[in-house]
């Protein structure tokens, strides 16, 4: 019995390793494809650096306005904004570039060939492209804001960092689920630009701590559409504002969301009618 379980675990681990390796090939291909166009590649980096400088102005704004939200000082708020900025960068670079292509795959039938590959179609469609340049200014600016906020708030550099990083990973998984769900509507309606816009508007609600919203909205944003988990829970953890129940929810939500996404994905793919050829 235990041998069978062990074999299953080993097979799952092998498969996981294969997927990680495959993801590495995706990243390599995207990077190589980007570098094929030298002018665009260097210009892209220059533009991203300019954006990085613009993002740095956020820090000035927070301090010049001396913004306080409840018990949160400008240093704390910077921690929240930094997390939001970093997550936006990761979402744009890792997920958005794929989710936006889904409607095109469905409209022109590109999905047909992807479907015949012996790997998870969801993996292939939702993680095939990585934009290396797009997330750089957001991730770097976000990391800078987090570092400044952390330091000025006098937070200790101990196990908190591991907790903060783990919650960021959970937030990344939540981001994947929340933002993929509306994209799946493309299987039914093909063009889903309007829904994507709504999803992005909801996403933007994260650019300030959730404390600015009324209680009922906070509950919706945490438990129904858990968008507030993305950029609030990691800073709240280091500020000791998360109860044990919140931490359990932060771990459970991505898992539940992933199960929901898998279920929706399977149903959506089943109804796929391809494009004429």
């Amino acid at each position: 019995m235990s041998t069978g379980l062990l074999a299953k675990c080993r097979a799952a681990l092998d498969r996981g390793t294969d997927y990680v390796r495959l993801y590495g090939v995706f990243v390599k291909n995207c990077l190589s494809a980007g570098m094929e166009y030298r002018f665009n590649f260097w210009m892209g980096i220059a533009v991203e650096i300019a954006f990085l400088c613009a993002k740095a102005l956020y820090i000035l704004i927070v301090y010049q306005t001396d913004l306080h939200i409840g018990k949160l000082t400008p240093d704390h708020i910077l921690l929240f904004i930094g997390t939001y900025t970093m997550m936006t960068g990761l979402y744009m670079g890792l997920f958005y570039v794929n989710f936006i292509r889904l409607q095109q795959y469905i409209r022109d039938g590109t999905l047909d060939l992807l479907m015949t590959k012996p790997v998870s179609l969801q993996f292939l469609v939702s993680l095939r492209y990585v934009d290396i340049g797009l997330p750089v200014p957001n991730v770097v600016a976000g990391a800078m804001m987090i570092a400044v906020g952390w330091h000025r708030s006098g937070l200790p550099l101990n196990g908190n960092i591991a907790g903060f990083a783990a919650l960021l990973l959970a937030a990344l998984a939540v981001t994947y689920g929340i933002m993929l769900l509306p994209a799946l509507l493309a299987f039914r309606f093909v063009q889903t630009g309007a829904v994507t816009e709504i999803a992005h508007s909801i996403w933007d609600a994260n650019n300030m701590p959730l404390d600015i919203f009324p209680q009922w909205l906070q509950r919706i944003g945490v438990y129904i559409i858990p968008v507030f988990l993305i950029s609030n829970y990691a800073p709240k953890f280091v500020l000791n504002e998360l109860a044990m129940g919140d931490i359990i929810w932060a771990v459970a939500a991505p898992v539940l969301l992933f199960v929901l996404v898998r279920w929706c994905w399977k149903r959506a793919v089943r109804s796929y009618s391809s494009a004429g050829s």
Partner: protein
Amino acid sequence: MSAITVRDLSKTFAYYRKQSGLRHSLRNLFHREQLYRHAVANISFDIGQGEAVGFIGPNGAGKTTTLKMLSGILHPSAGEARVLGYVPWERRREFKRRFAIVMGQKSQLWWDLPANESIYLNKCIYGIDEREYRMTLDELAEMLDVKHLLGVQVRRLSLGERMKMEIIAALIHRPKLLFLDEPTLGLDFAAQQNVRQFLKAYKEEKQATILLTSHYMRDIEHVCGRALVIHGGQIAYDGKLSRMSESFGRRKRMKVRFAAFIPPEELHELVRLLAVVRTHDGLTAELEVSADEVKPLARLLIDHDLVEDWTVEEVPVEEVIERLYKAKFGNEGEGDDGEAPGTRQRHAQEG
């Protein structure tokens, strides 16, 4: 033993029709009349292991839809199919490892990268051992004569070269079953011939089962021994390709331009024993004649000093298919409104 077994397989698509103009677009926003198209209707056939079958039919006949169902891309509306022992639309990983599909109009190559990068990606997807990958890549690239192009950016390749790369990418895991949907579409004569020869060699070497759709009869004649003719979603002919060619392939069309006006009754009387007059307008005519009778007919027309110019052509495949279909189903499948047979209008609640 059957590699593919199909029983009463059907696929119905829902669609809607819109007349041109902004007014209709506006109306369409609020109400759409749902229509259903029976792309494939109760087809059944078996394909043995190692057999190469040409899937022939006009546009919209249901060829690609059938291929998509057999490769697991589409779920059927009804019916059963087993491909290599698997139900294709269950999309099992082991099943996907054992076949390949090439679609002439769709690409799996990364446009901005050399083809070898896309092929390497497939190596990782299929989990092919490095040594086996190198061997297969060398072998396929040599057979298709594109070894020197593997490192060239895909967007810089010609259509023919790109199709060859698509074929290599699709076959890198050495599948025993190939679904080929118009693999020579748009290629020039030399490239078509090259692909054809490759497919034949691959089939013979690997004992592969092939289901090939093509608009070019030569592709099918070169690679396949059996033909499945589909029209209006139904199988109109299933048998040896040679028998089909015997029935229809030995008919020729002679298009004649006369030196002077010739009355219809005179032409009919003259060629009556050798040919059938399909069209005639006094100065030009189209005659259908058995391949054996082309020479006597030509001699007859020359002897009477009637001809200024002529051409001799094959009977178009579409027409052959139409005849096969009519021979099997009569005229019952023809739609009143000129749509493809099998298209029926129904209201949504009836569906």
